[in-house]
């Protein structure tokens, strides 16, 4: 292809990347893709099995496994500088803090609201 103009100026490969760029083998990428499709099928199938309140946790668990595969292999975090992983985990930690505290609050006040509703109803 038309890469000639840039290639002339390109530095030798050893000078270009000293370790932050890991090439993921094609087989690994393909394997991850197939696993992601299989897990998608699994999560659709799991929806039709009645497990009560467990259903939502199974769905979230499968989604988290899929997400981990995408982050570790497609986004290279497994091979990358640990500092990038710290940034990502920080985002997750604050998101969980945000969601967790809000849901705790929702649960905390649920009985009060229920009581108020009962008092208001004629």
């Amino acid at each position, binding site marked *: 292809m038309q890469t000639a103009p840039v290639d002339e*100026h390109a530095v030798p*490969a050893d000078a270009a990347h000293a370790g932050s760029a890991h090439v993921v083998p094609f087989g690994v990428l393909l394997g991850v893709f197939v696993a992601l499709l299989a897990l998608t099928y699994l999560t659709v199938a799991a929806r039709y099995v009645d497990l009560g309140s467990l259903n939502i946790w199974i769905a979230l668990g499968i989604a988290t496994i899929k997400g981990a595969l995408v982050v570790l292999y497609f986004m290279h975090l497994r091979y990358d500088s640990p500092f990038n992983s710290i940034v990502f985990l920080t985002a997750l930690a604050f998101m969980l803090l945000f969601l967790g505290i809000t*849901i705790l609050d929702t649960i905390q006040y649920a009985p009060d609201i229920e009581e108020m509703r009962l008092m208001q109803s004629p």
Partner: protein
Amino acid sequence: MTAHATHTSDHADHAEHPPWLAHHFDTPDQQFSSAKLGMWVFLLTEILFFSGLFCAYAVYRRNHPELFVDGHHFLNTILGAINTAVLLLSSFTMAWGVRCAQLGKTRGLMNCLIVTLVCAGVFLGIKYAEYRVKWEHHMVPGQARIAALLGLESPVLHELAPGEPAPRGFHPDHEYMGEKLRHADEEAGVRILSETLYQTQLQERIKRLGTFFGIYFSLTGLHAVHVICGIIAITWLLVRTVKGHFSAAHYNAVDCVGLYWHLVDLIWIYLFPLLYLIH
């Protein structure tokens, strides 16, 4: 820390540095890892941005679980699953494209980017078809106002007179929504005594689902905006690839857009079960 501590080596480095290496970086590797760190920090803000909507989802679902169970019957699981697969494929070809870029395979990178773009287009096409059905069944919160504001034609809900035979489904051209719901309801043990009554009840149900559809459209709409931004970014990569801007030594942009595209996929991985697969 680096080899550029002395004046002489610094000078020598300047003489041979590649044209794409910015002057405020010592080495291509430093430039690459700085760009990547910057991208990860951006993705952090994206995750927190979306978590606001996930929080709204969690609170409303916790308070009104029955509305979410009822609401998900109005979404098309098959289309959602197809879209999940399409987005996973696009993520795979993007990762493959980054690999091609790392190995200096320009042709392969080009092909991967094209497949990724096609997948993104298919995803948006399916999303459009889903939104269209919602619009035709009056499921968009504030639909009459939106229609007036944009000058669009909003299908008028047909108020059924007592005893008037109702059409199957709300809209003669889109019967599957009524059929799918009827099937789900019959499985759940709902006895459909009268067609007219059932149709009226369906319309009442949709009116009660405003919050569910508000969350559905906010989450999937914000995600779709990200897909559109991804299409713009990948098109930019494709143009630069054809112009020969990238090589095995220099592919920062491909790597960073790749990270962004995977995040868009990651968010959909959670959206699909949370919206389409509620038990």
